[in-house]
């Protein structure tokens, strides 16, 4: 049996028995973009009241997994950020909902998340540390790539804490709705 293309070309097999193929690959974010399943979430200028306070909280309140892919950070002073897996009910001083914008412009799909930022989010228990990012220099952007992503199933949550009470932190993070 031979595989034939539209113009009659025959698929080739090399001497070692390997079928020649030519494939186009998309990274995960590009794939999610085709169906409007990736958004930017924005946190802007938040400073912890005490060193290593949680300043960002995100919980999946939907039925599908969501995943954090990568982020861009900037801070007004040097600081270290930690991403932690957390449990418990967050309590906020003020609490500002993150801004969510679908990266397929005009697409109304949004991830079902409860995500807020604040100067001091309490009520959380650290269940495990996931990643850290050091922002060495004030007012410089840093790209943070998890490579594998952080997958957040229904009901699970993560939080970010910051080490320096003088650092106002800004973040844009990608969040995808994962069907795999």
């Amino acid at each position: 049996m031979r595989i034939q293309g539209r113009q009659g070309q025959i698929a080739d097999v090399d001497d070692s028995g390997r079928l020649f193929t030519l494939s186009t690959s998309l990274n995960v974010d590009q794939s999610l973009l085709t169906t409007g399943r990736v958004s930017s979430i924005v946190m802007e200028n938040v400073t912890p009241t005490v060193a290593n306070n949680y300043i960002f909280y995100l919980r999946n309140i939907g039925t599908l997994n969501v995943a954090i892919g990568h982020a861009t950070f900037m801070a007004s002073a040097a600081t270290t950020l930690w991403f932690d897996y957390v449990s418990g009910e967050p309590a906020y001083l003020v609490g500002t909902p993150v801004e969510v914008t679908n990266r397929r412009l005009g697409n109304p799909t949004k991830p079902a998340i409860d995500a807020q930022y604040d100067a001091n989010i309490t009520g959380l228990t650290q269940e495990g540390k996931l990643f850290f990012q050091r922002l060495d220099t004030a007012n410089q952007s840093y790209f943070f790539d998890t490579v594998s992503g952080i997958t957040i199933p229904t009901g699970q949550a993560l939080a970010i804490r910051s080490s320096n009470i003088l650092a106002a932190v800004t973040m844009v993070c990608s969040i995808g709705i994962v069907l795999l």
Partner: protein
Amino acid sequence: MARITDLNGVVMEVESLGRAFTLEVNSKLDQTLSNRGHSISMLVDTTSADNADDYVLYFQNIGPVVLGIGTIDVMASDVTTLWFDEVLGTPTFTAGVDTQETNRLLGSPNDPVLLSQYDTDIGGLIPFGRLFFERCALANRAYRVNEMGGMALPFSTAFAMRSSNPAAIITLKMTVNINDY
């Protein structure tokens, strides 16, 4: 049982776990689009903001095919923060300049159907959501907006870029893909 063979009768191998042997040439999406004449370099050849956070670049898809925005490289003559926002509304320009588009398949006539201009103060726009930012922390250094998936613009959607520092003269190169995959 059928076997896959080439013209010379060489049989495709399958190993003990049932996986077919293949020899793959893997092309990234951008490379595939470029080979088809669907990848374009778009250039903003210097602009600056009249006032802090004025919009200086407007980009709208006015054609039938979704446009993908890939890598964005920026350089500024002074320290500035650039934000890329989804926007609504009709832009107004003081002295708008068309961006330059060059197909990466040299000589290809394929052009994305878009409205893309830069200016020192683009008015009439309503911010609808923030998408990305890049901090140009050092003057005259190139920075790449590191967003691995980019963004997609269906028909009539638009984004705009604003700059925080009026003293910063900005140069920008952006990859625009005609996404018919």
